[in-house]
């Protein structure tokens, strides 16, 4: 953009903030500094950086927050400067664009037309000059599309076909859209949250755990239940499907049921649940028979200790292998509630004996199964629509900037004078000049065939 005089054009700060030079400087700085965060792993512990980069680099990393580059004070400052640059630049250009937009391009003079980048002049001699002129105007009418006409002070008449004048606003749409995207991102990060939920099949929860801080609980305002989790694999072993059957319970009523998959989340009251991971949790059933003939079936889920109080026994699951030579196997610890414990490997269907409290017990692995726990990403982002709006504006604005040209085609006809009738054809387009030139030539050739010039 050339230096255009505007009301505030004299202020050096304003001039600096509105310059495209600054925009270029910022774009280059942003491009270069953004590389840092792709080389240094982000979001690790301070200990990690100290160990991997040594004390000198560690200081720099800590000071410049290179563990979280894209949210560091200096990166956000750069983005802020960039936004400011964009705002000031836009405001600065506005009067100029308004002038371009408001100007009526039919107010021209013959001299102006002769200076246009595309123009051709004919002089029609009597006797048939006026018939030819009428013919020329007809041809222009047919070829150039809808036209307006105006009489000029010099006695000539100008006919104009114009299109795409509004395309000047495309650039504003484009640049403002970038600000809208920023605004949406800021709003979303302030008014929303990100969290995680791990849910066993059959389990219900009323909260998520914050991604940024695992000790912080985020209440959902309703209940979420996982009825089932399904995982499926291709014959190559690659995963094919992760699916959770979820139910939403609000005010004691089940209001919504949906099976979610990766790429197909569930949204309720502005909170969206995404399928993100899973764990399989084993659960084994033991049949324990004491030497006196007493017998009991005990279900032992992972991570829990289970007791048989009457016998004074406590046990738990240490390790589970779903498939050892075709049968599941488990390593169990079992012992007196306040004494020594044994660890034993059991296959399904096999049994072992232990001594505890003066009695002998036969321990049999009766059944083993896996239960799934689904991992959900939870998000509330009221700003996402603003971001999508900005993205749409960006693309539409861009398409306008790229494809829509402000095109003007003039035909000027001035009768009389000793030299005969003067005819000028002129054209101006602010982009797609090659295509426009072809169209101009086509009209020019059509007119040539009337005036007798050319081929």
């Amino acid at each position, binding site marked *: 953009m050339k230096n255009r005089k505007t009301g505030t054009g004299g202020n050096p700060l304003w001039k600096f903030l509105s310059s*495209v030079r600054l*925009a*270029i400087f910022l774009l280059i700085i942003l*491009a270069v500094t953004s590389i840092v965060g*792709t080389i240094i792993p982000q979001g690790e512990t301070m200990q990690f950086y100290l160990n991997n980069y040594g004390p000198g680099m560690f200081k720099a990393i800590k000071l410049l927050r290179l563990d979280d580059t894209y949210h560091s004070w200096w990166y956000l400052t750069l983005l802020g400067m960039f936004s400011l640059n964009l705002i000031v630049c836009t405001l600065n250009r506005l009067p100029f664009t308004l002038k371009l937009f408001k100007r009526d391009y039919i107010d021209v003079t013959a001299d102006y037309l002769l200076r246009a980048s595309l123009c051709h002049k004919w002089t029609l001699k009597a006797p048939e000059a006026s018939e030819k002129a009428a013919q020329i105007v007809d041809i222009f009418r047919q070829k150039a599309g809808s036209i307006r006409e105006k009489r000029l002070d010099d006695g000539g008449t100008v006919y104009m076909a114009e299109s795409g004048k509004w395309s000047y606003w495309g650039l504003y749409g484009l640049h403002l859209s970038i600000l809208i995207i920023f605004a949406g991102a800021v709003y979303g990060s302030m008014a929303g949250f990100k969290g995680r939920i791990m849910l066993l099949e059959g389990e219900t929860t009323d909260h998520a755990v914050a991604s940024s801080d695992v000790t912080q609980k985020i209440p959902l305002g309703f209940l979420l239940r996982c009825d089932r989790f399904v995982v499926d694999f291709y014959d190559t072993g690659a995963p094919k499907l992760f699916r959770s059957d979820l139910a939403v319970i609000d005010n004691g009523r089940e209001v919504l049921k949906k099976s979610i998959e990766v790429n197909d989340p569930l949204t309720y009251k502005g909170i969206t649940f*995404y399928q993100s991971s899973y764990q399989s949790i084993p659960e084994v059933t033991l049949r324990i028979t004491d030497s006196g003939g007493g017998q009991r079936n005990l279900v032992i889920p992972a991570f829990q200790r289970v007791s048989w109080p009457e016998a004074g026994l406590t046990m738990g699951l240490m390790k589970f292998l779903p498939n050892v030579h075709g049968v599941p196997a488990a390593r169990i610890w079992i012992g007196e509630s306040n004494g020594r414990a044994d660890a034993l490997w059991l296959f399904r269907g096999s049994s072992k004996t232990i001594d505890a409290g003066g009695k002998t017990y036969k321990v049999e692995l009766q059944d083993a199964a896996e239960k799934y726990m689904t991992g959900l990403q939870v998000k509330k982002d009221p700003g996402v629509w603003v971001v999508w709006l900005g993205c749409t504006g960006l693309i539409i604005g861009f*398409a306008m900037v*790229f494809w829509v040209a402000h095109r003007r085609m003039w035909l000027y006809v001035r009768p009389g004078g000793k030299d005969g009738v003067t005819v000028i054809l002129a054209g101006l387009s602010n982009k797609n000049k090659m295509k426009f030139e072809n169209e101009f030539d086509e009209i020019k050739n059509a007119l040539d065939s009337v005036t007798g010039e050319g081929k």
Partner: protein
Amino acid sequence: MTFSSSYLLSITTFIYLAAAALYLIHWVFRVEKIGLAASFVTAAGLVCQTAGIGLRWAESYQMGYGHAPLSNLYESLVFFAWVTVLVYLIIEWKTGKRVIGAFATPFATLAMAYASFSPDVQDKIQPLIPALQSNWLIAHVITCFLGYASFAVACGMGIMYLIRGEESESNSGLLSALPSLKVLDDLMHQTIVFGFLWLSVGIITGAVWANQAWGTYWSWDPKETWSLITWFVYATALHARFVRGWQGKRIALLSIIGFVSVIFTYFGVNFLLSGLHSYGSS
């Protein structure tokens, strides 16, 4: 399976190699007929490649996986070559400047050769893992690669611009067969604008997809960040025209730097850095 998609695509590699050689000969010896032959060979290569891609698509259905051939490094390289040739042929058709072919078709040839012959690139048809099962993925890949291919052609033009040099405007011989600096500058700019539009759409469709799959439209993962860096470079090139003293040579340089950034976004991130988009390394 002699008439398989990989057979057709291997043949395509050699057709593009021949086309690049013909364009080069056409440039050096300036024989109009050879230029015409180069155009025909390139178009034939495009037809053969289109058939190959279509066949691969059909084969994926026969294998029971059924997805558009845009899901791994091999398929994306093939698609990159396809779009590059397409974009180039459109430019040739619009401008009639065949010399550009000597600088554009080698990119397609290299991509195809790398896809077909490198041991790093797995050309088996693989099933889609859950994260990739999305129509947004198809939109994302197509738009990104439209951008990448345009940038490849713009990079070729940038190289031409620098070879031609600012001073040698009236030189005879090889250099004078290149389009004038003004024409090159204009074409380069238009190609960059076109690529920039598609890169923007590519980044946006990627964001929509990520938002649908993981709930974050932007997570600053290295591949995303590199695509943004590329975007910044080309935004610089677009605006440089409006600052005096930044025309021509510097934009040609930016066009080359931009394409290096594209290459890094495409390969470097997969091979040197780690992140979400690791499908490239398989």
